[in-house]
């Protein structure tokens, strides 16, 4: 049993008052349930039976849990056909103006923030004498439950959660909302790993909270100034965030074992033990970020949650957040279109007032998403965005050529030290330019242009240095170029740079492998086995590097993996004498042809199973190309041409029949 307010362990199951914070509310068991709603904890029976239609709109599906203020149910919104969470005030709390105010406040403040890492609150209402609010249903568990169930998560998972937490809190602060009750019980994690901050019951709009309300919250997670009833600001949330991160990374509360909460939050208290003492794998950067949040003096804490997130190792979750924002905008667009169709077909009737409320809400959400992430909210916008991407890529290529030709024009007249200085400062300035541009624009068009130009300038730098000093060409230069492009690709989530990075690193790595095998690196392409490790690395990269970049990087890696592999298979499947393997030419060719068929088939299967459409399509093309290659080998010279193409056509029809059968099965299996 834990105190609802301060988190202290309490004996017994009955109502009690907490010796630390003096809270007299019901102490509740923190839920370990995998299916829970925000701020909920199932510990007692429901007061509404499943199946009941409430307020003529919500069908109660299941009881999710009970919190200090009341009960939470999973329900179906019959008007909108969505699953929502309904949070009811307890019967005895319904008459308490404090709880009612808190409920209303939660809706008012939470609706200010539209962010993928903040739980969405839809509306508040009263029916059958009960006050309730409807909010996003999250199929998962609280962070507190997760920590109880699993202990501290692996470091990379903890960093991911921490980053999202910081992003959500930063979004709230951006809208002038101070949460004031950030605890592990108010952070929800869903099955997909998404993180959402919930329970804005005591949140405040404004930059500073003073007076009586300043002390509301959960004492164990309060900043000293909050506990003392002094000025509460966003930096008070940063302190709570520090405590929460401490617990997330170490699995223990920062002041675990402290006799009272009052001692724990005293301004002159000892700092908590460094997180790395409890969890040795904690990075110094993480430790510094956490301890920075826990400074007693608010002025010494980081200025924003975003700053805390940025101080964590790895790249920020901006890419995922931006992608989630676009997905949200797309969902709203799809919802609007479908709703319109349903209404036109007369399947569904929605009251104009409800429709207007939904429309207003969506407009507000979309406005916020456009402002924060520059998302596309219409098909035309999307088409224009694509045009802008193409234009910026063309611009980037043109600027790169301009840089090269300009340098060619002047370099002969420059003294060598000036040349070297210019060559080195060019890419460095362009890199700083990308950092500046990314801060000024959300869509990253100019950032991408500058990043490509930075890459080109670095390539010019290496190339001109090589010519100036008669240096032999080296695979090392390709590796350096690849690494440079990776750094910029991951800094900003730029796909064009990722393509350059994989291509350059592939050449460099292929060259290195060839060199190690005794072949001149510049001829690595003539020993196609040199690129097989590159293909393997590309296939594994989404599992390793993918966590740090946008999810949309993974298909690029997979396509490159297939491309490198296909190159080796086609080359060695036809010209076995170029293999490193000490085997007969024909044996090598058969071996690679078989490997090609096996891997291509496996890739098609994997693509279907894992829902990687690009892998399925690319592997299918690979498979068909392999077949055509073999058919040509076998029959081109043997058969009349019409017979050859007749066979190819017949095989294609065979494929069509097989695929159609598979598709029909899938459609029958679908609900």
């Amino acid at each position, binding site marked *: 049993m834990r105190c609802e307010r301060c988190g202290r362990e309490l004996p017994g199951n009955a109502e009690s008052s907490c010796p630390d914070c003096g809270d007299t509310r019901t102490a509740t068991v923190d839920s370990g349930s995998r299916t829970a709603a925000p701020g909920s904890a199932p510990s007692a029976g429901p007061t509404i039976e499943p199946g009941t239609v409430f307020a003529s709109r919500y069908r109660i599906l299941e009881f999710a849990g009970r919190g200090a203020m009341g009960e939470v149910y999973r329900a179906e919104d019959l008007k909108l056909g969505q699953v929502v969470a309904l949070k009811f005030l307890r019967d005895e709390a319904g008459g308490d103006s404090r709880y009612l105010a808190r409920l209303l406040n939660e809706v008012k403040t939470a609706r200010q923030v539209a962010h993928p890492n903040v739980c969405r609150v839809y509306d508040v209402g009263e029916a059958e004498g009960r006050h309730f609010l409807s909010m996003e249903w999250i199929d998962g568990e609280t962070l507190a439950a997760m920590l109880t169930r699993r202990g501290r998560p692996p470091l990379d998972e903890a960093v991911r959660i921490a980053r999202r937490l910081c992003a959500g809190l930063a979004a709230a602060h951006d809208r002038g909302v101070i949460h004031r009750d950030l605890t592990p019980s108010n952070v929800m994690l869903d099955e997909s790993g998404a993180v959402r901050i919930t329970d804005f019951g005591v949140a405040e709009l404004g930059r500073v909270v003073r007076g009586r309300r300043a002390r509301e919250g959960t004492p164990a997670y309060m900043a000293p100034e909050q506990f003392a009833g002094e000025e509460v600001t966003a930096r008070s949330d940063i302190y709570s965030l520090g405590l929460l991160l401490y617990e997330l990374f170490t699995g223990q509360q920062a002041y675990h074992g402290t006799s009272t909460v009052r001692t724990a939050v005293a301004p002159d208290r000892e700092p908590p033990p460094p997180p790395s003492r409890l969890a040795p794998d904690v990075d110094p950067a993480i430790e510094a970020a956490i301890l920075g949040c826990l400074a007693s003096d608010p002025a010494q804490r980081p200025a924003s949650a975003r700053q805390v997130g940025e101080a964590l190792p790895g790249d920020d979750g901006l890419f995922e957040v931006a992608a989630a924002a676009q997905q949200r905008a797309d969902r709203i667009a799809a919802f609007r279109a479908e709703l319109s169709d349903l209404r036109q077909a007369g399947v569904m009737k929605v009251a104009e007032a409800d429709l207007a409320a939904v429309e207003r809400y969506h407009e507000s959400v979309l406005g916020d998403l456009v402002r924060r992430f520059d998302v596309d909210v219409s098909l035309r916008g999307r088409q224009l965005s694509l045009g802008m991407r193409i234009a910026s890529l063309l611009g980037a290529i043109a600027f790169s050529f301009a840089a090269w030709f300009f340098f060619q024009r002047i370099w002969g007249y420059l003294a060598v030290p000036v040349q070297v200085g210019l060559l080195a400062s060019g890419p460095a300035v362009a890199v700083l330019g990308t950092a500046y541009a990314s801060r000024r624009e959300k869509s990253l068009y100019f950032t991408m242009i500058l990043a490509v130009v930075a890459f080109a300038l670095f390539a010019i730098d290496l190339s001109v240095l090589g010519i100036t000093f008669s240096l032999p060409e080296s695979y090392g230069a390709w590796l350096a170029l690849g690494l440079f492009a*990776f750094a910029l690709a991951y800094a900003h989530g730029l796909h064009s740079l990722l393509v350059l990075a994989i291509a350059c690193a592939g050449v460099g790595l292929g060259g290195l492998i060839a060199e190690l095998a005794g072949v001149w690196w510049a001829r690595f392409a003539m020993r196609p086995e040199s690129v097989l490790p590159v293909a393997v690395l590309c296939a594994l990269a989404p599992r390793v590097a993918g966590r740090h970049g946008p999810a949309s990087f993974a298909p690029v890696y997979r396509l490159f993996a297939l491309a490198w592999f296909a190159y080796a298979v086609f080359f060695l499947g036809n010209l076995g004498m170029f293999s490193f393997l000490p085997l007969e030419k024909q044996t090598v060719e058969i071996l690679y042809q078989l490997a090609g068929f096996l891997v291509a088939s496996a890739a098609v299967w994997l693509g279907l199973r894992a829902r990687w459409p690009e892998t399925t399509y690319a592997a299918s093309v690979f498979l068909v190309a392999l077949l055509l290659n073999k058919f040509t080998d076998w029959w081109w010279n043997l058969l009349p041409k019409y017979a050859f193409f007749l066979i190819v056509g017949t095989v294609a029809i065979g494929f069509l029949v097989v695929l159609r059968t598979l598709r029909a099965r899938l459609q029958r299996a679908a609900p």
Partner: protein
Amino acid sequence: MIRRGHIVALVLVLACNLAVLVQVAGDRRDPSNAEIWLTERELPLAAREQESSLLLLELAWSGEGGAEGVGAVGTGGDEALLRGLGFDCSMPAEREEAGLFYDAQLPRAAWVALEYEGAAWRAWQQRERDAFASRASTAGAAGETREAMESRLEHASRLVLVDADAARSELLRRYPDRERVLLLPAHVGPSLRRDEGRGRRLVAVILWDGGGQVVVPRSLREPLAGLAERPRDRGGKPKEYLPPRYRALLVQGRRDLLRLAAVEPLAER
């Protein structure tokens, strides 16, 4: 907002430039590995991009059949040179499958020795004259004239490939004169070449690691000003050549990087 990626990128730029400068500084410590005066015959101006202000001199050497740079013959012939570097030369060049057989044997790292105006150069001239005589006896007056051949020999590079070895120390032992012999890192590989009247034969291809070009620094450009616009090969039939218009001191540093240390104009004859 500076992210970790920016820092990595900046460090890379800095590290790569520093690495190059350290390598160059190491190369330029005294004493250098070789210093050799060559004329425009051995170091002609390289073809220049239309808008490029860069001046490059290109290392040229005389190979068999008047070829410069490709298929040069070593002391024991190309096949012996290739065998010495570990290539399998067992497939007769005339066989149909010889192409793929030799293509599959990729160039290998080797050091090559180029001798300047030595016995190999005189032997090369003699071989060219003998070859001319042989061609003249079979093709009559249809081919190159004697004047043209003599003019070509008079203006050809006096650098001749004399040897190649995987170990630099071996070559250094065999060719200690560092004012007449250049030892250069290269990649050597087999190739098949079809010459008129000689059928298909195996030759050694030399690929320079540094591209075989040397930049003319700004401080040495003066004697070369305007020369690029007036090519030494004046065309015509038979070809007319201008006499060499400059000589340059080619220095090979401690790490075998080539650079120009001086360029002097030559008085026109």
